[in-house]
């Protein structure tokens, strides 16, 4: 028996992407272990969600019970603990998410499972499960073998794998809840929603930065249009935030935030030292500024020395064309 048990994650009636992303890995691992993939879905009135998961050619075990309407680590742990005893999966997978990092360590300790968190790769070699995870802030990838055990546990990094398209129809099997009554020592209270438009620029992969060179807030759409085409978030220099063009939490620099996007396109930012210090983590910097002596060009990988008001709309148009 070499089954792989994947814990599906959902919130407020929405299946989380990570649930399907894990199915990019699970089938090949299950096959190598000589078993099958089982997805565990705990929830209340989650029939359609179960069908959706089953559409990926996997067996879905559903515990449909009002007790599981919202995530609760204590209840989840009890259920998983019981099901690991019943089903003896060779591997349990869950997301490296707020839920996963809450649940997995406690479960690993309770059951004595070998546990590899935050994995970005998974394979089986000679019957041994090997996971890849990053060390030293992502500078080194390490492959770690799970200790020989009846069951191992991994949490999978979000967005590390592309969710596979639906394939053949699998099966949905309702099972009884191993948890018969509510636990009252930890309760779900409420979801606190982040403010709409609230973006954490420290996590953004692509950023468009604006500075005083934008001149006035009525020019903001110039930057917004570019950002929309390349799916970037907007950020700005202290000056841009001071001027009220952007909220304070979008300020980049020593007194604002340090960002690390893969791509940073900045316009009208000449590159004050305190701003530069905030973008040192950016992989590729494209600077647009009409002043050829602007210090930003010493930092930039690509320099466009021209008026942003002339260049950026053209750039946006070209990118639109390229994207079709």
């Amino acid at each position, binding site marked *: 028996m070499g089954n792989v048990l994947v814990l599906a994650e959902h919130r407020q009636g929405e299946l989380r992407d990570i649930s399907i992303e894990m199915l990019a890995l699970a089938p090949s691992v299950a096959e190598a272990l000589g078993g099958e993939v089982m997805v565990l879905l705990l929830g209340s009135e989650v029939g359609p969600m179960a069908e959706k998961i089953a559409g990926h050619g996997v067996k879905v075990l559903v515990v449909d019970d009002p007790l599981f309407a919202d995530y609760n680590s204590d209840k989840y742990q009890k259920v998983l603990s019981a099901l690991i005893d019943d089903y003896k999966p060779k591997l349990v997978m869950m997301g490296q998410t707020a839920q996963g990092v809450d649940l997995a360590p406690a479960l690993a300790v309770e059951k004595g499972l070998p546990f590899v968190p935050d994995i970005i790769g998974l394979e089986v070699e000679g019957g041994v499960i090997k996971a890849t995870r990053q060390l030293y802030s992502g500078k080194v990838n390490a492959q770690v073998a799970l200790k020989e055990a009846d069951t191992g546990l991994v949490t999978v990094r979000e967005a590390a794998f592309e969710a596979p398209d639906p394939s053949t129809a699998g099966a949905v099997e309702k099972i009884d809840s191993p948890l018969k009554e509510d636990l009252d020592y930890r309760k779900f209270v409420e979801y606190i929603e982040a403010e709409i438009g609230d973006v954490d620029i420290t996590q953004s992969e692509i950023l468009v930065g604006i500075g005083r060179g934008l001149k006035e807030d009525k020019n903001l759409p110039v930057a917004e249009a570019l950002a929309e085409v390349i799916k970037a978030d907007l950020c700005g220099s202290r000056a841009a935030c001071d001027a009220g063009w952007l909220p304070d939490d979008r300020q980049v620099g*020593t007194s604002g935030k340090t960002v690390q996007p893969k791509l940073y396109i900045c316009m009208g930012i000449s590159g*004050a030292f305190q701003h530069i210090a905030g973008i040192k983590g950016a992989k590729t910097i494209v600077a647009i500024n009409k002043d050829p002596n602007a210090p930003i060009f010493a930092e930039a990988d690509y320099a466009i020395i021209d008026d942003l008001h002339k260049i950026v709309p053209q750039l946006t148009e070209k990118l639109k064309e390229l994207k079709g």
Partner: protein
Amino acid sequence: MMRGMKMTTENQTFAEKFDLLGCIQCGRCTGGCPVTVRTNLNVRRFVYDAYDEGLLEELARVTDIWDCTACHTCAVRCPKGLKPLEVLIGLRSLVVESGKTQPTVRDALESTFMEGNPWDKPRATRNDWMEGLDVRIAEPDQKVENLFFVCCTIAYDPRVQVTARNMVRLLKKAGVDYAFLGTDETCCGSEIFTLGEDGLFEMLIEDNTELLNEYRADRIVALSPHCFTTFNTHYPDLNKPVIHYTQLLAELLEQGKLVFEKGLHKKIVYHDPCYLGKQSGVFEEPRRVLQAIEGVELVEFNRNRERSLCCEGGGGKMWVESESKIERLAETRIKDAHALGADIVAAACPFCVLTLDDALKAEGFEEEMQVAEIMEILGELEEMQDNSSSAQEVED
């Protein structure tokens, strides 16, 4: 142990450390505090409340404590000779000690610990400002008259590196016996102190004292008023005097070793940096230097000398923003300068130059007015001109 500052012992209470019982609650501190026009900071209130040990933790959580720029106006005005601002720093220390400080502050502290500067720059590049210049680096066993202490901000920020570059040219021209510390130079801790990292500050004091005492120099010349004042206030065991570079220049002018051949027909208003003026009493020398330039018309702000309006660059504010959307004090300053019809706002402090320069751009006066370090102005004269990109203005 520390000159001008009380040391805490384990038995000393917060109230004893900051002499809170000495306060008569007259309110002159808050009354003169420049940031009250744009933030809710009420330093008198903190001095009052901090007497209650049980309230300290709560007080340390009030974000207002991070609005203080450590300008020392409150200390200058206090009739009892207290330093109300240090109560705020003491509260910041509680935050830092608890490990719950803002990431921006954390990074600055970590960088100072690791690399000897708060700018997250490698120590190895501390001399990069010297590029293309033949600079004499100090050796401990070689006698030198003036040992220069550059300052982290001047060493690393391209906007103000010109201060040090022009200084080297001027020293050579005037035939001054000088040497620079080079990559051994480590942050004086001015901003580390005001950010509340006591432990790191004490470590810097110890290390810097040991380093600076090793050199056979007659005196230390600091390019930044922050280093200058910090050495004179918090380094009791330094074995040589520390002066600010404007004092050296005034001395050279008096001795006739420094003569400005070319004139500059500009109206200049001098902005007294808090750390140089109200904290260290150096008011005349910078003015004397500017007045020695033929053609310069030196005008004065209404709020000058010990009443000089803080630019908000100190007190760790380079790493902490206030939530206030009300005009920055530097912008007020720039407007005042504009109203005076000044061509140049001169300052003798890297932080003042950076904040005032930002404000100049914010007010849109770039075409009419200029913010300049005094060394930058002197560079405009004669052959000291620095044409490298480091002298370029920064837009924001």
